[in-house]
C-alpha cells in the first residue's frame, strides 16, 4: 500500500503540497467508498476533525487511540454494527454514528458532548448513559428503544434529547433535568404525561403517541408544545401553564373544546386542525400577535366577532369547516398573506382577453414594485399587452378565480442559435398577494410549457430579479437551472 499522504492525495482529501502527516488537521473522506482505512492512518495524530461519512466502514483501527486532538468524528451512513472500541479512548466532543446498524450503546467516551445515534437498531439506553456527564445533545431518534435507564437523570448538562420514532411507553426520567431545554418524544407509544410543572423545557414534542388525556400546569419556560396526532379528548390547562408559550399545536386529536391557553398575548402559531371543535371563543381576539392560525377540518359554523382583532394574522387555514354564508367576509377583511378559502378547483388557467387588460395591469404594477429595473406605466403596459395579444408567436395566460384575474404570465418565441431551433421566453410571472402559495404560478408555467411542447420549442428561458429569492426558489423547485449569463439592456 502507498504511504498515507499519497493515499490521501489519491482520494483528493489533501493537497499535493502537504508534506508531513502532522500538517493534516482536518480530513473529509466522505463518500470515498472506503471499506477500511489505510494501515498507517494512526500516524495522523494531529487530526482535529474527521469526516468518514457515507462509506462502508465497519470498524476503526485501534491506532487511532493516540489521536489526542480529535474532537469531532462523523461516521454516519457506514456499516458499523457496533460502536468502535477505539472511540472510548479518544477525548471526543462530537460523534455522529447515525444511519448505521448499531444495536448497543457502548464504548462511548466520557468527554462526549454531542452524540447522534439516530437511525440505528438500538433497543435499550442502558446504565452506561449515566456516565456521559458532559453530554449536551443526544439524538437517538428512529431506533428500537423501549427502555431508557434511570441513569439519564444524572445528565445535568443535557440540553437537547431526541427520542423520536422509538417504542417508548413512558416519558424518560430526565424530563425534569435542570438544563434540559428540548425534548422530542414524538412517534412513540406513550400514554401518560408525568408532572412536568417544574421542568425548564422550552420545547416539548409528544406528537403521535397514545395520550387520551393531558394535564398541563407550570412549565414557565415552555415556548413550543406539540401534541399532534394523539387520541386526545381531554386537555386540562391550568392558568399558570406556560405563560410565554408562542407555539401550540394539537392537530389531528379528538378535541371538542377550544383550549384555553394563558399565553394568549405571546402565541404566534396556533394549530388545531383536524379536531371536533365547534366554536372559536370570543377570547381569540386576545391573541394579538397570532400570525398563523390553523383551524381547518373542524366543525365550526361561525367565526366570533373578535376575529377582526387578529391584526397580526398572516396565514389562516379554515377549510373543511361548515362555515355559514357570510362568515368568509370576516376573513377576507383581514388582508391575509394566505388563506385556504380559495378553492383551486375554482381557479382557471386560460389565455387572456382584451377585457382582462385592466386587471393584468394591476398585477404588473405589483410585479414592477418588486423589480428594481422597471417602472410601472399603465399606458405603455397596455400597448404591450395588446401587441402580445395580436402576435401569433406570443401567449398571455391569466389565472382566474370566479372570473377575477389573479395571476399573469407571458411567453414569446425567439430563434435560439444555441439550441438550433425555437425557444420560448417567459416573462411577467405574477400572482396576486392573497392567492399566492396555492400553486397558481406553477400551473401557469405548466400551461405555457405545454404550449411550448406543442409548438416543438427546444427550450424555455426566463429572467428573474436576483433579489427575488422566493421567485428564484420557485423556478428551481420546478426544475429550472440558473445560467452564468448576465442580462443587459440598452434603451433607445
Amino acid at each position: 500500500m502507498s504511504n498515507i499522504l499519497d493515499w490521501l492525495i489519491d482520494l483528493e482529501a489533501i493537497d499535493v503540497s502537504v508534506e508531513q502527516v502532522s500538517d493534516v488537521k482536518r480530513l473529509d473522506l466522505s463518500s470515498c467508498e472506503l471499506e477500511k482505512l489505510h494501515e498507517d492512518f494512526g500516524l495522523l495524530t494531529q487530526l482535529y476533525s474527521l469526516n468518514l461519512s457515507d462509506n462502508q466502514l465497519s470498524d476503526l483501527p485501534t491506532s487511532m487511540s493516540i489521536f489526542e486532538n480529535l474532537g469531532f468524528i462523523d461516521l454516519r451512513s457506514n456499516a458499523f454494527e457496533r460502536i468502535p472500541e477505539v472511540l472510548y479512548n479518544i477525548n471526543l466532543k462530537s460523534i455522529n454514528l447515525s444511519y448505521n446498524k448499531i444495536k448497543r450503546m457502548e464504548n462511548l467516551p466520557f468527554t462526549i458532548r454531542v452524540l447522534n445515534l439516530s437511525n440505528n437498531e438500538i433497543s435499550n439506553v442502558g446504565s452506561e448513559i449515566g456516565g456521559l456527564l458532559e453530554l449536551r445533545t443526544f439524538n437517538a431518534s428512529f431506533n428500537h428503544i423501549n427502555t431508557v435507564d434511570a441513569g439519564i437523570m444524572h445528565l445535568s448538562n443535557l440540553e437537547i434529547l431526541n427520542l423520536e420514532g422509538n417504542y417508548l411507553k413512558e416519558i424518560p426520567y430526565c424530563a425534569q433535568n435542570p438544563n434540559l431545554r428540548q425534548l422530542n418524544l414524538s412517534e412513540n407509544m406513550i400514554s401518560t404525561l408525568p408532572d412536568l410543572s417544574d421542568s425548564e423545557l422550552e420545547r416539548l414534542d409528544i406528537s403521535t403517541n397514545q395520550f387520551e388525556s393531558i394535564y398541563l400546569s407550570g412549565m414557565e419556560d415552555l415556548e413550543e408544545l406539540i401534541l399532534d396526532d394523539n387520541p386526545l379528548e381531554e386537555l386540562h390547562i391550568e392558568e399558570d401553564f406556560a405563560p410565554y408559550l408562542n407555539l401550540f399545536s394539537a392537530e389531528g386529536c379528538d378535541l371538542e373544546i377550544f383550549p384555553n391557553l394563558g399565553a394568549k398575548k405571546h402565541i404566534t402559531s396556533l394549530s388545531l386542525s383536524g379536531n371536533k371543535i365547534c366554536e372559536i371563543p370570543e377570547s381569540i381576539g386576545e391573541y394579538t400577535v397570532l400570525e398563523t392560525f390553523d383551524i381547518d377540518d373542524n366543525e365550526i359554523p361561525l367565526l366570533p366577532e373578535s376575529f377582526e382583532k387578529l391584526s397580526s394574522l398572516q396565514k389562516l387555514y379554515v377549510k373543511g369547516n361548515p362555515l355559514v354564508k357570510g362568515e368568509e367576509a370576516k376573513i377576507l377583511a383581514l388582508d391575509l398573506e394566505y388563506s385556504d378559502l380559495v378553492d383551486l378547483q375554482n381557479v382557471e388557467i386560460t389565455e387572456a382577453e382584451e377585457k382582462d387588460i385592466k386587471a393584468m395591469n394591476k398585477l404588473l404594477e405589483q410585479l414592477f414594485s418588486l423589480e428594481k429595473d422597471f417602472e410601472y406605466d399603465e399606458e405603455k403596459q397596455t400597448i404591450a399587452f395588446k401587441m402580445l395579444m395580436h402576435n401569433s408567436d406570443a401567449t398571455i395566460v391569466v389565472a382566474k378565480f370566479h372570473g377575477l384575474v389573479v395571476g399573469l404570465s407571458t411567453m414569446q418565441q425567439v430563434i435560439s442559435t444555441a439550441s438550433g431551433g425555437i425557444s420560448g421566453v417567459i416573462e411577467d410571472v405574477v400572482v396576486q398577494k392573497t392567492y399566492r402559495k396555492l400553486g397558481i404560478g406553477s400551473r401557469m408555467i405548466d400551461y405555457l410549457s405545454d404550449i411550448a411542447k406543442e409548438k416543438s420549442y427546444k427550450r424555455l428561458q426566463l429572467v428573474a430579479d436576483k433579489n427575488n429569492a422566493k421567485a428564484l426558489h420557485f423556478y428551481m423547485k420546478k426544475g429550472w437551472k440558473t445560467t452564468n449569463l448576465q442580462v443587459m439592456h440598452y434603451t433607445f
Partner: protein
Amino acid sequence: MATEAEILSSEICECGEKNVAEAIDIFQHTELPFKKAKKLVTECNKNCCRQPLLKLFDMVYYGKFDYDEIHRLILIRNEKLKKMIQDIKG
C-alpha cells in the same frame, strides 16, 4: 436493490393511497408548508408516513433526489407499523 422505477411506483402513504411519484408531483405543485403539503398526500391527520414524506418534501425543495433513501425510510415505516400491530395484538 429496487430500481428507481420500482421505488417511484411504490406506495408511500397507505391512507392517501399515493406512490412516491404521485407524492413528488403533489409537492412540486404546492407552496404550502410541510404539514399542509403532507395532508395533500395523506388526506388524513396521521403521522405514520411522516418521515419518508418529510425527506421527500426536502428533496423536492432542493431539487435533488435520493430514491434509495426514500425506499429505506418506507421499509423502516412498514417494519414499525408491523411491530406496533404485533404489540397491540399482544
